[in-house]
């Protein structure tokens, strides 16, 4: 029942923007542009004492002028004006609000204002995101409360929970312009006076529009509650988290060793492991993981095959796999025979696959296609990474053979990376990714991604125990 309470944030029938602005570039103006750009289908009410019209929509002079039955308010005012607006919204019967303004817990006077907001939320039984949030997004409902100019936000199946304004703004801008995957729900938690990561996770757990959850957190407000919820969710959906502040010393002076050694991050790390949450350590991986979880099946195991056009890459990437907990196993004799069939006789074939000779003698497309198929077929292999050689000198293949292989081996993650001319890397990415095959510009990234996916699979399949 708790979860339903958050419904109006993600599927609002209508929305009021308190602090709507006629001035382009102001958050109160950009938020309206974003709502319009996403083709939100509910009614939009704008409130500004000046009245008039903004972007073709009529403006009401006060919250009291709003019609009854408004579900969600985006309050985009200065910190000091926010409490009064929130109270007025509550009096108008609005129970859900996004508080965009910043400058609360961070400054002296803000602490008092934030306490006042907490009091209003409690007294009026409201549900609130923020304050100090850059907003939230719900692409299945074509809705966003983000005030950073994003335009149309691409729909996808992965949802993000982020305790940073950057994610819903600049990082999202990168995803929208530099990548091809989309998002389902994005929640910027802000200062978490009401909705916290446990609430958000609980909502997304049962959200049919969310297939996987990626989180960035700086703190966990109710860690035991979080553990209780996450422990159950992670059996059904992958949950990946970047938790910052891991180098904090934070040890306690204590008579017992156990207490002395219980640094804060160590306990959080333990809690995340227990919960089945896959911890990541790099900001970039927030994007890589989202992309991989959007496009790939989870691998059945950690056994990888890769095809490289360089001996150096074969060695370096094999070492990397060991570091990442991935296995580069031996392959079936039949697979080895097939690899020999497609290669000139002077080269010894095994896993990982040295594809240079085959690709240069018999053609890039032939070499990679036949080589990839051989290892995709092999029962010892759970995932395949081709390091595609793409130069005009060696010939640019049609990329369709990769789509064909993906279609015929849908259960094994197939991730492309390159040893290539940048022009063709981009071309290949722009062709394959909208059709569901992820590519990564750096050769280590597919393996980093596979390690994350493998951990997700392990967490989902871990034995149930009392």
């Amino acid at each position: 029942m708790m979860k339903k309470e958050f419904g109006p944030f993600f599927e609002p029938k209508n929305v009021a923007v308190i602090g709507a602005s006629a001035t382009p570039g102001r958050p109160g103006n950009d938020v309206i542009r974003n709502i319009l750009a996403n083709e939100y289908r509910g009614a939009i009410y704008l409130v500004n004492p000046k009245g008039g019209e903004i972007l073709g929509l009529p403006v009401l002079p006060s919250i009291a002028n709003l019609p009854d039955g408004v579900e969600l308010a985006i309050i985009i005012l200065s910190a000091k004006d926010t409490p009064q607006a929130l109270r007025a919204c509550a009096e108008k019967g609005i129970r859900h609000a996004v508080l965009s303004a910043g400058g609360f817990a961070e400054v002296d006077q803000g602490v008092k204002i934030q306490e006042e907001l907490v009091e209003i939320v409690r007294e009026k039984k409201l549900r609130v995101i923020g304050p100090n949030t850059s907003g939230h997004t719900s692409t299945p409902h074509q809705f966003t409360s983000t005030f950073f100019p994003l335009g149309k936000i691409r729909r996808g199946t992965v949802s993000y929970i982020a305790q940073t304004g950057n994610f819903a703004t600049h990082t999202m801008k990168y995803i929208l312009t530099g990548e091809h995957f989309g998002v389902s729900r994005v929640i910027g938690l802000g200062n978490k006076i009401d909705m916290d990561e446990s609430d958000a996770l609980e909502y997304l757990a049962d959200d049919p529009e969310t297939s996987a959850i990626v989180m960035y957190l700086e703190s966990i407000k109710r860690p035991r509650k979080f553990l209780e919820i996450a422990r159950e969710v992670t059996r059904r959906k992958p949950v990946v988290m970047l938790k910052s502040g891991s180098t904090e010393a934070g040890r306690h002076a204590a008579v017992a060793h156990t207490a002395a050694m219980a640094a804060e991050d160590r306990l959080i790390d333990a809690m995340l492991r227990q919960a089945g949450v896959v911890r990541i350590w790099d900001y970039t991986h927030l994007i890589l993981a989202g992309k991989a979880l959007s496009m790939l099946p989870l691998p059945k195991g950690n056994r990888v095959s890769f095809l490289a056009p360089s001996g150096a890459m074969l060695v370096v990437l094999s070492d990397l796999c060991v570091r990442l907990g991935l296995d580069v196993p031996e392959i079936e004799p039949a697979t080895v025979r097939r690899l020999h069939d497609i290669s000139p006789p002077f080269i010894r074939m095994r896993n990982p696959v040295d594809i240079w000779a085959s690709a240069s003698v018999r053609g890039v497309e032939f070499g990679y296609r036949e080589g990839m198929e051989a290892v995709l077929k092999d029962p010892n292999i759970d995932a395949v990474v081709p390091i595609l050689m793409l130069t005009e000198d060696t010939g640019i293949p049609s990329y369709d053979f990769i789509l064909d292989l993906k279609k015929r081996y849908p259960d094994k993650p197939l991730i492309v990376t390159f040893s290539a001319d940048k022009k063709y890397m981009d071309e290949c990415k722009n062709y394959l990714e909208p059709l569901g095959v992820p590519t990564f510009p750096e050769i280590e990234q597919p393996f980093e991604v596979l390690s994350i996916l493998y951990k997700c699979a392990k967490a989902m399949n871990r034995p149930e125990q009392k």
Partner: protein
Amino acid sequence: MMNLLKEAMAKGRATLSEYESKRFLSCFDIPVCREGLAENPDSAAAEARKIGYPVVLKACGADLAHKTEVGGIALNLKNIRDVRKEGLRLMKIRGCEALLVQEMVKGARELVCGLTRDPQLGPCVMFGLGGVFTEVLDDVAFRIAPLTLGDALEMIGEIRARKILDPFRGEAAIDQEILGHVLVSLGRIGLEYENVAAIDINPLKVRPDGKPVAVDALVVLRKE
């Protein structure tokens, strides 16, 4: 068992003595070494004969949380004369109230288990490499209570020195089932006994047959 805690709390003590700590832990099926308390070197010698030589003799007292630092442990005593002699020396240590006579547990491997409380996460259980280098080696794993046996087995496999679990220098592989139950029990104590602030079992020695046994233990009580 609650009496043990209650009495100690009533006396305003910060910890249980080693002997009391082990009596408390053994109520939760945590295996502890054979031992007996003696009031003087003579009765210590009698205890030693019951337990069988060689024995370990320790200074025991409510405020003796760290015995090694004050020279409060005499290892591998092989006869009555040594027990008497060491007994006399230990009785002179400040805070020594009695002598603890223990079997000398064989086995090369020393582990550590413990319980602590985090203000937000509540009771947390630790497992790792034990002995005098525990904090230097810093090879430990934690879990939040309550623990399932699966949680316990997972954390046991998480330490860097996990190979120590395998057969080692002619000694059997560690019985992970027993070890897992020790960790589960520590979590249970954390949830059920608010007056226990922290527990150290260090070392938890591993007998040559792979069975772990608490050789030293410390129960820290909640400050009133």
